[in-house]
């Protein structure tokens, strides 16, 4: 239930935050704050995800074995936990991305069709 609430708060369709995080760390291992900033940047400020949503998602993904955390130094030379995608995570991301694209394509088609014939 809580999971639904936090994602609603960030204005995301349920379950998509996990996908976005996976996508973000797919490029390179990143720490928590970095992931939040990156999501904000890529979305051009549309997605502002706070710690209350991010950290439960990290814990969830880590538990499911999709990401893996490792303590490393940041560019500012502080210690932070960097998350990297696991092989299983990569497979999940690929599958979910395909599913997502397929679904959005279908929905888009439906929406367009009804737009033509009111």
């Amino acid at each position, binding site marked *: 239930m809580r999971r639904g609430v936090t994602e609603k708060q960030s204005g995301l369709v349920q379950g998509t935050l996990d996908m976005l995080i996976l996508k973000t760390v797919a490029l390179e291992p990143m720490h928590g704050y970095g992931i939040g900033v990156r999501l904000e940047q890529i979305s051009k400020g549309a997605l502002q995800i706070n710690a*209350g949503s991010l950290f439960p998602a990290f814990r969830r993904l880590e538990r499911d074995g999709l990401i893996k955390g490792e303590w490393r130094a940041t560019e500012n030379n502080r210690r932070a936990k960097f998350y990297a995608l696991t092989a299983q995570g990569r497979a999940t991301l690929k599958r979910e991305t395909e599913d997502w694209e397929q679904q959005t394509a279908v929905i888009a088609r439906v929406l367009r069709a009804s737009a033509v014939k009111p």
Partner: protein
Amino acid sequence: MRTLLSRFVGGLRALFQPQRTELELDDELRAYLDEAVERKMADGLSREDATRTARAEMGSVAAVKDDVRDVGWESLVDTLWQDVRYGIRTLGRSPGFTAVAVLTLAIGIGANTAIFTVINSLLLRNLPVAEPDRLVRIVAGTVDTTRNTCVWPTCQDLWTYATWEQVRLRTDLFDGAFAYSSGGAFNLGTAGEMQSIEGLFVSGTFFSTLGVPALVGRTFTSSDDVPGGGLDGPVAVISYRCWQRRFGGAADVIGQSLVIEGVRFSIIGVTPPEFFGLEVGRAFEVAVPVGTDTLIRGADSMMRSEDDALRIMIRLKPGQSLEEATTTLRAVQPEIRTGAMPKGFPELEEGFLTHAFTLLPAGAGTSSMRLRYEMALLTIFAVVVVVLLIACANVGNLLLARGTSRRQELSLRVALGAGRGRVVRQLLVESLLLAGGGALVGLILAGWGCRGLMALLPAGLTATPFLDVSFDWRVLAFTAMVSLVTATLFGIAPALRATRVAPIDALRHHGRASAFGGSVSGSLVVAQIALSLALVVAAGLLVRTFARLGSVALGFDSDRVLLVVVDAQRVPIDPVDRPRFFQKVVDTVRAVPGVSHAAGSMFAPVSGTVSQMRVDVPGGAVLPEGERVSLRHFITPGWFRTYGTPVHAGRDLDERDNAGAQPVVLVNEAFVRRFFPDGNAVGRTVTTARNDLPVGTRTIIGVAGDATYRSLREERQPTIYLPLAQWNLPFPLNPRIFISVRPVAGSPMALAPSVATAIAGVDRNAAFMFRSLEDQVYASIAQERFVAMLSGLFGVLALLLAGLGLYGITAYAVARRRSEIGVRIALGAGRADIMRLVIGRSLGVTAAGIVIGLAAAALATRFLGRLLFGVTPLDPATFVAVALLFIVVTTLAAFLPARRATTVDPLIVLRSE
């Protein structure tokens, strides 16, 4: 799958290394914040502003941590564990309440566990053998397929040795077969008084087909089971119990010998502790091959006679259904029957050939105890369930009262932000703890209870009852389930009620109770009184049944007779001379000083063993074939005088009625009533019907009074008494008969030593055993005694619990209304007014309880039907007596607190406000 596993492992890690997980999360959050501050400073904010903004964006660290923790399943375990610890502390703070609640539940749960354990052992459990589901036994005739039993008297489940030989030839149709004869009490004594040991004759394939291995040594093979003993001579396998009890568990028991009926057997193996044989309710001590019966019983051996002595069991092939196996067996039935045709009984041949074999599942073993106690046990089970319900109501009431006094604590928790669900969970955890405690103590009580129950079972004439009442997984699962259900039953209503609190209550001083007890606890007490009343009524009927049976006129003097089992097996005489030998023993015993009368007979009264015969009565009433049946009893002269049974018409048996004289019989009055409605029997004749063992045509010389031989419950059966001296059945008289001895005065048992000397004087090879007839009668109503004692015990317990329940809520209400009562007294209320105030409400509750209880009892006692004897299910005396008893007890329970209420001192009460 992998995801689930990694979730599970992660949760475990968090559970077992909570600090490490916590610290890491702290570090991570700190790093997050630091990074945020750093970035914001890079954007040009001052350190102070940056820190403030970052903090504001992040929100409460504690809340984030909570959210993270809630991701895994372990958080549930964590909070539950918190609830448990908190619950233990809370309960520990009120030890009196906890002790009463746990003990009440322990009695309820313990009683249920004990009865269930016995039910499990007797009715549910399979035999401790390999794949019991594939075991079936051969029977013929009427069967009860729901209980897998053979229905007496039209069903046959014992077979001749010849039949077994025929089946043995065809074992490959199945996955093995074996035969055994249960119930032999072997004599270990060499002379004089018998030392019985529970023995089994088994075929060589017995242990291997059952899949029972030897714990020590080996079990039998087919080469051990040959007439007269195999290559190793007579060999025996003993049970674990026998090994421990008679050999002290000696390591070198293999090779030692056991002299059974004068034959030396060498021990070759010991069976595992859990194997007790195939008869549930008894435990074998020694098993010997069927083939050794020729050594033990010589001419009487089942291998040389047409005795139906053996049970035959088959192991089905894997996948072979009962129906397939039955078809297979019936296909070879003609060959088996022809091959096993008894010789010398032409009148039996036709029925013998056509009586079809039936297979019955036998994985649960056979059990006469099961048949006898099934109904009784299930009834007592219902009784203990009611006791548990009453206990639940009691504890529920305690919790309700406690909930009221915990209002402040609970509303404080709600005020501090605990959700209602969370508080209910907390209270339910406390209930579960109470039930768990009750279950633990209950298991201990049940352990004692089971041993007590076993002690209630009477020793039989030759066999000692034995039931393995150890707790197995099924019993533990049952207890766990019962305590769960119990906790829910007594816990849920109080928990829901107690949490109906507003946070503001925490701030108020404890509020005043408006009414006595409240409606929930009031209806709980009504239910309690009603349930316990119904239970006490049922118990009353069962106790009366037992009392009635105890005073049934037996038609003989049960307290004046000593029973002696005399065994002439080893007396070196021709079996056909046995009647003469026994007559000699009887005459010698009669001459013993202090003996007034003595007589011999084939059966002992009320031992459960009788024999029947089909009769034709020329010139008598015309009756359907099923009713032309009579008990058949061989006796010596003096029998009626020994037992004090009158001979009403004609004459008694005497010495003239010997082998050479005219064949005669006496009959009882029931026989006359059935076969000679005109009342004239003396001088008429009876003869054996077709299809039965012939006793020839005999003249009735006298009519004796009716007497009970089989069961105290049944109507007096028509009985024919035949003189032992005129034994003319086509096989020799059994070597073991009963001699009944009546003393001139004093205790029958006191005669035993002089009777022993007298018997040994006739032939020192005669073996014997004493038993008082009174014990025998007592044992015959053991099942009724069992039910009466247990239902009586639980009835008293239920009454006590209900009384305590009523007392409890009244006393509690008085305590809570002290100030109100004080004010009333200060304003001039008298003693009587206060009493009326307190008792008034209790009386309403009691009256409702009694009325509902009587109605419930009237509905419920119908189901006791079969267990009752001499009382009707609606016996007015019992109903009235129980109702009066409840009025007395409940009045007392309300009166005591009421009297205390009148002693309230208004000054003290008002000052304490």
